[in-house]
């Protein structure tokens, strides 16, 4: 029974109707991004909306675990097994790469676009349903793979109309490596992580001091790292000054190669580096990145290097269409041509082929010009020729 006072327009929190012109803008933007991916050899796959919960939650090493709390679940009446609605498409594409396309030659380039559903929105992204567009590059370990994914993502954003996107490069493996050397118990390690996530220099120093390890090389490196954030070239230079273990040094070397590769590929791309950023990168194993744009709150997308369930080196990127649409100006309405009542369908086709949007009259009554303007048409067909609907000269 519905409450008579309930407004039929009310939707559950985080779910929206996308209206004209934004709905068409989203579709066009997605198709533009997918075209850019296709042009670089990425082939589209389309996984289902719902899967068995067990395959979506994954094995904990591939990021599925961190989204387990974000999935809507339902019982499949047929198989009597628990199903979940995807909260992220990346995992599904990785599953396709390992389970269905394992005989395809590597590197395997796959792209995808689809809707995802999450249990909870957050402050910056209240949406619970939004479109995710992305690509995965599976079976390529070389630095050129890292560069290709970042460059392609940045270029797709520019092509979509995002003003001045910037890429923030991250290296979750670098901090993980240093934390390993510190050899802390789990609770302290988590506290330290929380302090690093906040970039809280004083709390980090305090934790290290209270554990009596503030003077180890690893602790000094950590304190130096937390201050290094900023333009990529400067940070790379600073990182090379810090005394690091061989493993951590290899991560820095990799970062610097990616920075050099990106400078060569896209000289004008804004590139920052933040070696301490870790949130959301729990399952990443190498160079990762976050996409921002000036004046847009929150991130437009993120990606990075990981190991698939089958042990293959992979990297990829996910773009979040809700944030990207927020970064785009409202679309400029195109010209619409009003066809007076009785205009033959084929007459309109000539103009549609020439790129017009045509709107056919459904009534012969009233003033044609006024009717054209009422229906949002810029032009009106007069004697077989488009004329300005408001009567001004064309």
């Amino acid at each position, binding site marked *: 029974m519905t409450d008579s006072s309930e407004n039929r327009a009310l939707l559950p929190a985080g779910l929206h109707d996308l209206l004209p012109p934004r709905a068409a803008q989203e579709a066009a933007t997605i198709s533009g991004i997918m075209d850019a991916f296709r042009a670089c050899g990425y082939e589209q796959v389309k996984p289902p909306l719902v899967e068995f919960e067990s395959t979506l939650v994954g094995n904990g090493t591939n990021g599925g675990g961190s989204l387990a709390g974000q999935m809507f679940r339902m019982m499949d009446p047929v198989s009597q097994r628990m199903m979940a609605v995807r909260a992220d498409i990346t995992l599904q594409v990785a599953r396709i790469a390992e389970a269905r396309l394992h005989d395809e030659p590597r590197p395997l380039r796959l792209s995808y676009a689809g809707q995802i559903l999450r249990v909870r929105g957050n*402050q910056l992204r209240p949406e619970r349903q939004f479109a995710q567009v992305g690509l995965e590059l599976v079976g390529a370990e070389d630095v050129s793979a890292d560069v290709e994914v970042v460059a392609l993502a940045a270029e797709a954003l520019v092509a979509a109309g995002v003003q001045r996107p910037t890429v923030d490069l991250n290296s979750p493996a670098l901090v993980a490596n240093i934390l390993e050397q510190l050899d802390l118990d789990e609770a302290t390690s988590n506290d330290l992580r929380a302090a690093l996530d906040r970039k*809280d220099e004083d*709390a980090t120093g305090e934790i290290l001091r209270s554990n009596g390890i503030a003077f180890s090389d690893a602790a000094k490196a950590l304190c130096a790292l937390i201050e290094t*954030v900023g333009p990529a070239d400067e940070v790379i230079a600073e990182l090379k000054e810090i005394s690091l273990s061989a493993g951590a040094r290899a991560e820095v070397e990799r970062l610097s190669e990616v920075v050099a590769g990106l400078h060569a590929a896209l000289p004008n791309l804004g590139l*920052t580096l933040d070696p301490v950023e870790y949130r959301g990168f729990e399952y990443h194993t190498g160079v990762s990145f976050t996409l921002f744009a000036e004046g847009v709150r*929150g991130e437009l997308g993120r990606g990075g290097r990981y190991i698939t369930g089958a042990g293959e080196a992979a990297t990829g990127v996910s773009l979040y269409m809700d944030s990207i649409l927020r970064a785009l100006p409202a679309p400029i309405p195109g010209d619409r041509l009003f066809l007076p009542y009785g205009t033959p369908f084929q007459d309109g086709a000539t103009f549609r082929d020439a790129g017009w949007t045509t709107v056919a009259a459904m009534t012969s009554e009233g003033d044609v010009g006024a009717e054209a303007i009422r229906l949002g048409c810029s032009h009106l067909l007069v004697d077989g020729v488009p004329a300005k609907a408001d009567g001004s000269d064309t």
Partner: protein
Amino acid sequence: MATKTEKLILALPKGRILGEVMPLLAHVGIEPEAAFNDPKSRLLRFETSVPDVDIIRVRAFDVATFVAFGAAHFGVAGSDVIMEFDYPELYAPIDLGIGACRLAVAAPQSVVAVDDPARWSHVRVATKYPNMTERYFARRGVQAECIKLNGAIELAPSLGLCRRIVDLVSTGSTLKANGLVEIETIAEISSRLVVNRAALKTRATEMTGWIDRFRDAAQEARDVA
């Protein structure tokens, strides 16, 4: 750069902390316009001696929200507010060493005398900090039913609203005046420089410059003290 970028907005808390922030501001070279110190001024946004930095003055609790949502690029907020909201988009790099106090549990002397905290399964608490209070008690295996108040929290026990409160304590004189005793400290509090995550990433050079200046200012103040 091709297009002109928008001004940086610095959010400062009204009230007690503001007086302690001003010397730091002077040290980093931000001098607000005269109207900022004029109690009769109705302005909420002020220009400063730095052409591309404006100041907004908002309630202490709202500084974190303005910065987390990117409405302000950086600000000064107490660690109580930062922990209460726990915004993932907020960096808190520098402890400014001002506004020191603590978040504590307090109750009337009569309650403390007969109470055994080990036997609690549920407490009712009046507080301005329901999230921190819930987290704190949950860690001890106690369910906290929080009554959110925005001020005069010390009144709650004496009027029978609840038996315990969680509130900021600096000298303890307000507690004493209301017949309350501090039982436990939940967290030590001080004011932080907070920075919006996207601002730090998209305007890295400017923002790291300001962080460095505030770090120096805080360090100097500490050295003097």
